[in-house]
């Protein structure tokens, strides 16, 4: 009985972690900054490949993962400075530009790095509950998802940068009039979004097949979570993750993965029909 309950909780945690980690970076870039970033998957891929290369060169996995996230963040800042900053008021153009970047990166990687690499293996071993055995690393992923949510909360609510970043996103002209260097806020925020995407990739790198297009497998979940969550990273992403994880876990368990995926997409349709501003829009309206 306990084993069954634990198994359900474990599956929920697993799906929740995947949704949150896949969506965290996009929540900043798309949710807050309003850039429909079609290259989100490629930031994730960047994190994955940098992590794997580091591990292959003998760097311990946690350090390699930090380097992977950092590398994706630096690439993000570079991209923001050269391309994205020209597109802040042109959302449709930003879709096209980021999509183009995405295509060039995946095909370029396919040509340069080849179609597949050997994996690095999942660390931490396994544990047993009742008749079930579980991978311990999946719990670490859940811990990381909670850690990311906490870190986002602290950064945006408790630091000077957080206040200035939120001010910039809400009203850039006013923020600039008050002395905020909005250009820098945009660059840092975009970089942070990219770094979180890279972190997601770095964390999932040991558990998946390594191919240049693997970032795409995260895309549906990340956009779905951010759209359901709405514009506010802090109020939106976490509840959206819980809601979607409950739906998906339940349907996965009862009718299999197909039902889980269909259920995920139907939930989004229902949510954006009833709550056009997402969960966070609805929550903040209730507060007023």
């Amino acid at each position, binding site marked *: 009985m306990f084993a069954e309950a634990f198994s359900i909780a474990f599956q929920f945690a697993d799906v929740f972690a995947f949704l949150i980690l896949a969506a965290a970076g996009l929540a900043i870039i798309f949710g807050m900054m309003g850039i429909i970033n079609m290259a989100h998957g490629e930031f994730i891929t960047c994190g994955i490949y940098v992590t794997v290369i580091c591990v292959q060169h003998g760097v311990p996995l946690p350090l390699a993962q930090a380097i992977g996230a950092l590398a994706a963040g630096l690439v993000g800042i570079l991209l923001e400075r050269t391309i994205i900053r020209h597109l802040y008021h042109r959302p449709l153009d930003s879709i096209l530009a980021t999509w183009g970047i995405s295509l060039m990166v995946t095909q370029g990687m396919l040509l340069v790095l080849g179609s*597949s690499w050997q*994996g690095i293996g999942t660390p931490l071993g396994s544990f047993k509950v009742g008749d079930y055995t579980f991978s311990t690393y999946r719990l670490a992923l859940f811990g990381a998802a909670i850690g990311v949510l906490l870190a986002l909360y602290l950064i945006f609510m408790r630091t000077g940068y957080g206040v200035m970043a939120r001010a910039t996103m809400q009203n850039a002209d006013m923020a600039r009039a008050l002395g905020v260097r909005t250009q820098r806020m945009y660059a840092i925020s975009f970089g942070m979004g990219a770094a979180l995407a890279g972190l997601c990739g770095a964390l999932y790198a040991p558990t*998946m097949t390594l191919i240049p297009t*693997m970032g795409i497998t995260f895309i549906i979940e990340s956009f779905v979570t951010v759209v359901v969550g709405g514009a506010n990273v802090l109020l939106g992403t976490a509840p959206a993750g819980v809601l979607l994880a409950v739906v998906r876990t339940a349907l996965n368990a009862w009718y299999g993965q197909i039902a*889980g995926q269909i259920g995920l997409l139907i939930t989004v349709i229902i949510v954006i029909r009833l709550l056009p501003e997402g969960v966070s829009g609805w929550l903040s309206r209730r507060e007023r």
Partner: protein
Amino acid sequence: MTKSGRRTGLGARLGGAAAAASLAFALATTTASAQQPPIKIGLLEDVSGDIALMGKPKLNGSLLAAEEINNAGGIMGRKIELIHLDPQMDNARYQEFARRLLQRDKVDVLIGGITSASREAIRPIVNRTDVPYFYTNQYEGGVCDASTISIGAVPEQQFSTLIPWMTETFGKRVYTIAADYNFGQLSAEWTRDLMKKQGGQVIGEEFIPLGVSQFGQTIQNIQKANPDWIMALNVGASQDSFFEQAAAAKLAYPMGSSIKIMLGFEHKRFPPPALAKMHATANWFEEIDTPAANDFKKRWRAKFPNEAYINDMGYNAYTALYMYKMLVEKAKSTKKADLRKVIATGEACIEAPEGRICIDPKSQHTSHHMRLIGVNPDHSVRVIKDFGLIKPYWLGEIGCDLTKSDPKTQYTPTNLPKK
């Protein structure tokens, strides 16, 4: 003098095995007129997208065979011209490109397609023309279509050998995980059918959408069902993540498959022991150790030194071109009707690296030398059982006879021809 210089140059490049070929090349350039138009071969292979890692060796296999054949003087003195397009595992693109190759490029033969979905997408288009189509993958079987010549292995060669052995060795309760499209669904049907005949049963079945990469729930469902072994019919790089995640969760059931190891070389892509206890039946895998196979591998590695694994698909794509060459040379024509007359004689055979293989007149499928292979804990591969040559008999038994009629249909164990 110049001629012999060219001969040594080529010989050195292709290795000793091609010495005779380069001699033939020298003869061909002097005797056969160089003005003859080339034979155009349309090639549809996915070299990008989720299955690029399997499609790339396919393209390489065709390139190698085309180079060898051209260096040996082509087909009836005509050079081969490969026209390759990359449909990127998109069925709409398959249809668009098939039309383009057939109508605009006017190819003499169409070869390719990886997934069964892509084959079924282009088969009706090929059927509106008079061009023969070679499908070079192992698949779920059952296509009874006069335009289609199937080079890969089919269930009576793969499942009828694998499933009885797995049932005897590990037990009668199997859990199937399969990709959710026609290949996975029909292969699962074959598994159900054969398990019943073995007195066993399929105690769980899970169909997974292509592109899914997270398998926590699946792993737990398998543990709950506690089968004797798993039939793994998951497809594509994303779904292959199952093996890593299952190994991390200490899921240690024996596994069987008709596509793993020889096709997607999972044992080379995942660190050991994720694929230990995997079993498969194959007509080709790179670890095969016979003189003919070793010679073939040497030529392949000389042209593509960075190939991660010479897989079954690449091998079949290579033999397909030689099969086509043999048919055209025996028929002295590239017309489909003439090629089919050769097939109808039952003498459409070639000496392939696996041994002598022939096209069956009734079903237009290919006989194969089948072996059961198992993966060791260190991911080396051992041959467990050698089944010898197995003919593609199933379609003929259920009443498909392409020498008499052309139903253009795909049959399955539950969708048999009406008598």
